[in-house]
């Protein structure tokens, strides 16, 4: 198992967002089945850790992942990028075979 990592830039932004939001223990990553290529990412604030959660810590940010999602995400690095006026998070996921162009759903 390689776990989940955040780029330094992503971690900085997450820390900032959590501080401004005023609550939350960290970030929750997961996958759901849906979307045009089968799987979709879940990226949410976490207000509490669940007993079954796997917890990774990276640049001071806690990342919570449910055990069922981990096989699809293992080795992923979450990055924060800017593209023109748009900015946001990008999953760099080594498990992905093909993506649906939109980057929101994928196949393993």
């Amino acid at each position, binding site marked *: 198992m390689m776990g989940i990592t955040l780029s330094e830039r992503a971690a900085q932004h997450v820390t900032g967002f959590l501080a401004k*939001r005023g609550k939350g223990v960290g970030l929750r990553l997961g996958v759901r089945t849906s979307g*045009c290529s089968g799987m979709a990412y879940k990226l*949410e604030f976490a207000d509490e850790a669940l007993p079954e959660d796997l917890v990774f810590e990276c640049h001071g940010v806690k990342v919570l992942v449910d055990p069922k999602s981990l096989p699809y995400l293992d080795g992923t690095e979450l990055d924060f990028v800017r593209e023109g*006026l*748009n900015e*946001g*998070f990008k999953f760099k996921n080594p498990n992905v075979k093909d993506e649906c162009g*939109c980057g929101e759903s994928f196949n393993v």
Partner: protein
Amino acid sequence: MALLQIAEPGMSTAPHQHRLAVGIDLGTTNSLVATVRNGVPVVLLDEQGRALLPSVVRYAADGKIEVGQTAQAVQARDARNTIVSVKRFMGRGLRDVAHVETMPYDFVASDGMVRLRTVQGVKSPVEISAEILKVLKSRAEASLGGEMAGVVITVPAYFDDAQRQATKDAATLAGLNVYRLLNEPTAAAIAYGLDNAAEGVYAVYDLGGGTFDFSILRLSRGVFEVLATSGDAQLGGDDFDQRVYCWMLDHARISLPSLEDSRRMLAKAREIKESLTYRDEANMLLQLTNRDRIDLMLTREELAGMTRHLVAKTMQPVKKALRDASLKREDVKGVVMVGGATRMPHVQHAVAEFFGMEPLNNLDPDKVVALGAAIQANVLAGNRKTDEDWLLLDVIPLSLGLETMGGLVERVIPRNSTIPAARAQEFTTYKDGQTAMSFHVVQGERELVSDCRSLARFELRGIPPMVAGAARIRVTFQVDADGLLAVSAREQSSGVEAKIEVKPSYGLGQDEIARMLRDGFDHASDDLQARALSEQRVEAGRLIDATEVALAADGDLLSDAERAAVDATVSRLRDLAQGADHCAIKAGVEELNRATTEFAARRMDKSVRQALAGRSVDSLKV
């Protein structure tokens, strides 16, 4: 490829199902767009990193439409086709617009909203505003990477129905789905999280580029109620620039600067004013077109001194609003600062001194309204859990009602009712056999229709003929979440129905609304008199009609002498009803009632006899 944002717990959306929502501050001087990203409200910037889009639209001769800084840059050269502060014209007729004669535009006379003739043809304020909204829309779509699900647009609290409708129409024209229009002071309060704060009275002090607005809000059970608004439509940050500019002319001993020099000096004046917010003194270096140099020094104290009267001027509307709301300054729990000009330390001090507390000023005062709108849009888009106590409501600014007989107003929805709201009231017919009824929808606080604003008229036809007072007509007023009104009328027995969406052609001014509210209070006793008079007149008219109908049908039941007595009483009442003494009319009504009592009794007997005629006694046994 889409970039992801962090959602609230459990609120992740399916791919391609992002509920992108923004808040738009469609301002008189500048406009902004904001959104909630990763749980944080942020203002969206353009390619040059600028948040503010000047609310300036230019229709160029080559068919191009320029919006914002590019339009502003050529404003002086092409004033007629470069529309500044179009918000002043929204939902207003030519007569409603102040200082028309000093404006460089070619106004087109029309019955409804004012229109402007440009090199690209005649444009309405709605179309011009839509151009501003289109630019903000494409900025938002580029920033969020997708299409907008919906927007919240802010409007001044004093905007009436016509001005709100015009704003909504502009959004539709720009291809935006409007979740809701939100009052600007309410948006500012939301940005500061006051909707989660202690219940109580809050004030919003909004000193923009060219206008000053002051509002008093009361928060109770998550509802912001606008208690009073006031302001000065001709006072803003630009007046402070102008003061500094005059000071420069004075000290540099320039009497008649060229247009270009004047422009440069005004820009410098603004720059110096802004820099004195962060520094105690600023140096002013400027080269004029004739290569002369201006080299002056201005301190923060001097700036405060030369603009003290402008700050003092804002305090008049503040006091007035407090008076209108019957509140003392100690009743105010917090003051929110809005508008770039509130950055000036001496403005902050004046407000702090007046209210005896430091105002809320840690958010950027240029952005606070847009941020509040974004927070509201995010909730309405469904990006937050609904179990968080987040039902934010607004109220209608002026009462809505119907004209009844005698030019009186029957209030159906009182002012400050929370919206959306729906209220129904039953009305009936006034004359025997009446088959149609016309409705006149009015807005205002006065008792007489002529003192309120007329919003719409419509008719209900096809009422089955019945005796006066037998028809039951249910009139329903519905105000949607944007404060827009729909009225329907339905006759209950036959089900015939008529309805109208109220889209008035142009609206009331801020001063006019304030005046109408004040008049409502000032004239309460006059209005009661007027109401009593009018009610008695209606009653007199009704009784005279009824008596005449009865005389025509059964006049033979009276002797000539009796008939003459009734006729005399009728004509006496008719004369009294022309006068202004409601007590005398009332007495006349009672007199006619007494004079016709015997006649009425005989008519009863007659109809009972007719009903019984030809029937056997058995058929009457039950």
